[in-house]
């Protein structure tokens, strides 16, 4: 059992045209910038990307959108401090948007990973985001049926990882990442440090290795917030 990968390029080498890709992170926290940039170097097109946001500045997901790789975004909040990449393409009709309430997005991903094809939630009942979806009444309240979300690949940032794929996260960078690890056919994770199996106390493992396929070490991961403040662009 050895899920470690020697390079970022090798880690993303199977992601091809038309893939559905979950990308971890909430804004910059937990965003796998180095894996995203390796994917841009590889350059698959026509991707469906699932993330809470839709990129910021000219790096990460925004740079994927700038590069014309993204056909559709599934997200809750496609705005940021510098949302030009998504906004320009969206207003030009060049990118599709499926807007999902944040908690529903999280639960749809969890359901995808847990083998639950649909569930009912009170969120969005009576709003435009529930239009066309089945409604049911349970104990006198109305609920909206939502479908699971699954992906071909997830690219994720974590803190520690081992060759089994066991993971820990750093603070609030956990966010969507454990859920996305579960919901993708192939989960690729960049970690700040690869440790020996057994070094992560089993009591502290957040994502068990069964949900992880590849682990690649990026010892000094860059932070989206800092790159944006420094005016860094991908190109």
């Amino acid at each position, binding site marked *: 059992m050895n899920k470690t990968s020697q390079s970022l390029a090798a880690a993303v080498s199977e992601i091809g045209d038309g893939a559905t890709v979950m990308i971890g992170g909430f804004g910059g926290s937990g965003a796998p910038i180095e894996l995203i940039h390796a994917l841009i170097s590889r350059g698959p097109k026509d991707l469906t990307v699932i993330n809470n946001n839709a990129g910021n500045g000219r790096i990460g997901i925004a740079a994927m959108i700038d590069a014309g790789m993204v056909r559709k975004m599934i997200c*809750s909040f496609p*705005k940021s401090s510098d949302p030009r990449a998504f906004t320009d393409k969206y207003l030009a009709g060049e990118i599709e948007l499926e807007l999902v309430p944040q*908690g529903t997005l999280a639960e749809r991903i969890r359901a995808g990973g847990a083998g639950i094809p649909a569930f009912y939630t009170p969120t969005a009942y009576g709003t*435009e985001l529930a239009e066309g979806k089945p409604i049911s009444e349970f104990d006198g309240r109305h609920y909206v049926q939502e479908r699971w979300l699954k992906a071909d690949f997830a690219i994720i940032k974590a803190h520690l990882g081992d060759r089994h794929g066991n993971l820990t996260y750093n603070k*609030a960078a956990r*966010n969507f990442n454990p*859920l996305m690890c579960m919901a993708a056919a192939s989960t690729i994770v960049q970690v700040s440090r690869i440790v020996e199996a057994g070094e992560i106390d089993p009591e502290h493992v957040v994502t068990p290795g069964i949900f992880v396929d590849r682990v690649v070490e990026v010892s000094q991961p860059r*932070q989206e917030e800092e790159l944006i403040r420094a005016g860094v662009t991908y190109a």
Partner: protein
Amino acid sequence: MTSIAQEEIKLTNAQIAWRAAQDIVDGAYVNLGIGFPEMVARYQPPGREAIFHTENGILDFGEAPKPGEEDWDLINAGKKAVTLKPGASFFHHADSFAMVRGGHLDVAILGALQVAQSGDLANWRVGSKGVPAVGGAMDLVHGAKQVFVITEHVTKNGEPKLVEKCTFPLTGVACVTRVYTSHAVIDIVERRFVLREKLAALSVEELQSMTGAPLHIEGSVADLIVPEV
């Protein structure tokens, strides 16, 4: 339309936040929406400890760090850097929204474009133009035991924000339980606005003229008294 005299008799945003903060009991689990609602945290009465939830995955976060000491893996839902209090915890998004929808939060406080007498809330989008973005707003209005709105009583143009029926796109249906405005405190009871407190300088008739749906009175209406903050 609101007269100039009425414009002058009103609470500041800080005073609205102060008034809402007085209704958060010791030990409450509270989510404050991004922006204006975040101000409520400043006015917690002494001796009460509320635990603040941020939907990106922290319970019991505190003040912003000093400039230069930000940790961008330690942020709130507004993507601003925060610090932790002793007893804080981290969790993933599905657990975070289970806390919301599952009825575990005591209070959620949000801003509003419009609130209807039925408790419907519109606060995420003005129309169909531009890029729509909802975030956690539609989740946060469901599940908390109390959903408070803090808002100006009327828009900048003097239009009522408390209305019979929302005309902006809805965030949630029959979800708001109490509204703190620049002029009054109003509960939503059985699809009606029930006036609980109003500024003493304002008559019920004047307040009604600024409100887009009937104000009901059950028992006494207290004076809305807020210190300078």
